[in-house]
């Protein structure tokens, strides 16, 4: 339960624009005994809500395993993808562990661990659609999740297509089924699993648009935290644990 008294005290005290002394966050994470990490919760099988209303998936398992390596409790949470970096910068959680691609633009404002899996961008269309490649999307409507690398790519490479933005992949699958969009771009594994497990009436169109490496995002200026995460990740990958988690959720070894 949050504490009103502290909040009100902070409210009255803080406007003095006091600048905190920055220390590596690893220390405070260990003191709290808890590491919080954010994801959209709309990205099965990487992160999603299961039928028992629990947040679960590949990302959750990987980051929980990393938390266990560090010796703290994992605290996964969901937030809108388009505000997820803003939330990290506003200290609302310790990490983003939600299949975020490492890009030069993102590296300007946040830091990343070593990649924890590889995948790529793929165009998906309705099962009976005639579209074969992304090039045929000119004049068509294509969906992307707001704030993703896919959104940037589609806007830059398919200027003739009408771009619609959504909060997550399940929403876009529904939109294809309802005929509101012709296709959408997302991670290849995400779409493949939706077809495989949810019998989503969509299909892959054309080859991989480009490859991506996903990392765990953290705030800049935390070399010790980053190093600790990388060491834990390396240990997971060397043992059987990474492989087991990957096979469980993705049916492949995504190392």
């Amino acid at each position, binding site marked *: 339960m949050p504490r009103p008294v502290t909040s009100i005290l902070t409210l009255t005290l803080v406007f003095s624009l006091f600048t905190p002394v920055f220390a590596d966050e690893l220390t405070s994470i260990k003191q709290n005994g808890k590491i919080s990490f954010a994801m959209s919760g709309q990205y099965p099988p990487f992160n999603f809500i299961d039928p028992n*209303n629990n947040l679960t998936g590949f990302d959750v398992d990987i980051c929980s395993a990393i938390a266990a390596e560090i010796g703290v409790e994992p605290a996964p949470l969901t937030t809108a993808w388009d505000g997820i970096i803003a939330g990290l910068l506003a200290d*609302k959680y310790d990490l983003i562990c939600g299949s975020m691609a490492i890009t030069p633009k993102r590296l300007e404002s946040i830091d990343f661990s070593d990649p924890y899996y590889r995948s790529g961008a793929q165009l998906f269309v309705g099962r009976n659609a005639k579209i074969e490649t992304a090039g045929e999307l000119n004049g068509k409507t294509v969906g992307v999740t707001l704030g993703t690398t896919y959104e940037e790519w589609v806007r830059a490479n398919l200027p003739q297509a009408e771009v619609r933005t959504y909060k997550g992949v399940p929403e876009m699958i529904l939109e294809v089924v309802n005929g509101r969009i012709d296709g959408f771009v997302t991670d290849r594994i995400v779409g493949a699993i939706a077809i495989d497990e949810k019998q989503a009436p969509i299909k892959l169109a054309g080859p991989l648009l480009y490859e991506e490496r996903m990392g765990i995002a953290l705030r800049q200026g935390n070399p010790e935290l980053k190093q600790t995460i990388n060491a834990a990740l390396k240990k997971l990958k060397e043992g059987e644990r990474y492989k087991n988690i990957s096979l469980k959720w993705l049916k492949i070894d995504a190392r």
Partner: protein
Amino acid sequence: MILDWAIIAHYFPFLLKGALLTLEISIFSLLFGLIVGLLAALCVLSKNLLLQWPARFYVWLIRSTPLLVQLFIIYFGLPQFGLNLSPFWSGVLALALNTGAYNAETIRAGILSVPHGQVEAARSLGMGPALTMRRIILPQAMRLIIPPLGNNFVILIKDTSLVSTITLVELTLTAQRLIGSTYKPFEMYLMAALLYAVLTTAATLVLRQLERRMAWGTA
């Protein structure tokens, strides 16, 4: 189209849990919003300009900007100045400040509608301004304030759905998250809508009861 009743039966308890958080946020925001509203109304009516102008500015600022933007300023913006509230308290603060401004206007209108003769009569009996406000004006104003205040409460309960954008898994976000795994938007949002209707109707009934009790001495 036929509703998927199995889905509804399975997921209803989770939505109910979301509704509980919605209720909790509503109650805290309602209480703080009432206090803020009453204080702001008294300040706006005050002859002291140091009280009047800030209160007027507050009411103007809140009423002329969207709640969602206010919420984002508190949640995403204030940490830049070292004020990092939890999602729960960010939501309560934004909602309380927002509804507080509307409550202030409602309360101010209620106080102003008490005939001035009442004040003069109280003063001639030797009552000071504070006592006049407490014994004479507020009790009469209450009757006029409660119905529109109830309207503000209902709006407040519905506005709590906006805090779904700041990671609070209340009723709306619970529904949204479950659609991600069930692909059943109609069933999920229908259940959410029903639960909101239950909450707002309950609030309305409680207020109507209160209204009836306050109605003494009127024709």
